[in-house]
């Protein structure tokens, strides 16, 4: 198995960064981590997860779609799309790695989102297995193996070396490109570590959460549940949960009038906002209860009903830590489950 000893990991980063953009989680002054472009001296964060998810790489918060140049009565349409350059993202956790396949289902089905596709084709995902999960982790509930994450290449460490497992042709190409930095290693110790990690995951407080009560076939029952009123009571209608979520994919398209034309851009939108999906007659969801319900119904019911039962949540736990009122998908699932 391919490996790089941990003390040579920084050299590996430098090598990759010398040929293409490399992004990885680094620590910020406030003790949280975020994905940043590798520069000399960047250190890989030891934190489990970043505040913002890795979806930004393929589906950025704001993205210019097209420009219009206005001269007198003439409007010129300018395609601002550029061929995206190759880049690699290191240190994506299993939850975020799975989120890409969920986003793919949305953006790569017909009609294909060419902006997303462009980025997706040029990005190599190097995922990193988890050894020390947080109490808020529940990816295993959605059938994700945090010890064997998805991604073009998956990495895991036995404490001495970083082992690289290639999963896709894109990953193969990447490894070939940097073949000289890898050594051959014996993953025996690694397997033991993995077994140990798997046991840790079984002990997590949310490990036994059940998804049995959810899915497309339970739609009307869940939609009409009286529990939503109580659950949404403390929701302040901010977009924190949706913006840090690795799988929330709703966006809005807007025009910005510059001094000599118009920039049409898209930006993330949140179903928690009052002007979300606003139409001529107004917002179809007039109360916070309805907006709140929308988010969870989308993840737990509508998405699986349209995607062969796959849930729209990857259990990364970000909304559990960041919600200003500490309401989250786990509390919603537990409350609705009781009813069964």
């Amino acid at each position: 198995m391919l490996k790089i000893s941990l003390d040579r990991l920084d050299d590996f980063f430098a090598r990759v960064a010398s040929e293409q953009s490399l992004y990885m989680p680094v620590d910020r002054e406030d003790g949280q981590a975020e994905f940043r472009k590798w520069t000399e001296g960047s250190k890989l964060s030891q934190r489990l997860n970043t505040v913002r998810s890795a979806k930004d790489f393929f589906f950025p918060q704001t993205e210019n779609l097209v420009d219009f140049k206005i001269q007198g009565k003439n409007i010129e349409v300018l395609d601002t799309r550029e061929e995206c350059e190759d880049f690699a993202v290191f240190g994506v956790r299993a939850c975020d790695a799975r989120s890409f396949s969920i986003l793919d289902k949305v953006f790569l089905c017909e009609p294909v989102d060419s902006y997303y596709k462009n980025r997706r084709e040029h990005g190599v995902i190097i995922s990193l297995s988890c050894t020390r999960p947080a109490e808020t982790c529940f990816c295993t509930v959605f059938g994700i193996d945090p010890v064997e994450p998805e991604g073009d290449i998956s990495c895991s460490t036995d404490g001495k070396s970083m082992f690289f497992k290639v999963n896709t042709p894109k990953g193969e190409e990447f490894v070939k490109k940097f073949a000289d930095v890898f050594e051959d290693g014996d993953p025996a110790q690694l397997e033991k570590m993995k077994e140990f990690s798997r046991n840790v995951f079984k002990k997590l407080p949310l490990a036994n959460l059940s998804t049995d009560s959810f899915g497309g076939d339970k739609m009307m029952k869940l939609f009409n549940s009286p529990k939503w009123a109580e659950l949404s009571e403390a929701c302040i209608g901010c977009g924190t949960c949706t913006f840090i979520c690795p799988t929330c994919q709703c966006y809005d398209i807007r025009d910005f009038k510059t001094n000599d034309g118009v920039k049409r851009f898209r930006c993330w939108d949140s179903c928690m906002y009052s002007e979300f999906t606003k139409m001529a007659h107004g917002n179809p969801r007039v109360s916070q209860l309805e907006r709140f319900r929308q988010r969870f119904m989308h993840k737990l019911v509508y998405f699986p009903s349209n995607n062969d039962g796959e849930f729209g949540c990857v259990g990364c736990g970000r909304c559990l830590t960041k919600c200003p009122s500490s309401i989250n998908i786990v509390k919603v699932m537990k409350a609705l489950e009781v009813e069964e």
Partner: protein
Amino acid sequence: MQVNDSKNFEPVIAAFCCNWCSYAGADLSGTNRLSYPTNVKIIRVPCSCRVNPMFILRAFQRGADGVIICGCHPGDCHYTSGNYFTRRRITLLYSMLDFLGIERNRTRLEWVSAAEGAKFASVMEQFTEDVRKLGPNRRLEDLRCRKK
């Protein structure tokens, strides 16, 4: 700090002028054949108190390099007390802009009466000069609106 990238930099000045005093003051400076810089773009408002902080920020966003607000002298407001409110509000706003590190000389407030045509011209002259020295507004601009 000098960020003037071109020697021929001509600043854009947005001047919010109250209808009753300062706008008439600008008029008077014109009828008196006094000149003031063409950089100054006057925006007439019913009272200096009408100037919402958003107007000021929006002016910077859209390419202004300096923003000046002109109103009646305290005590002379057409609406009795409008400019007293302006004074408090704008003091706090300018202080906040300063706190965020926006250059001080980009913002100003002056009281100009309808009889002060000469003052209007000299205030504009002076303010334009001050902003010219600072160079283009880079700390509070919207890149999408930058002139190409």
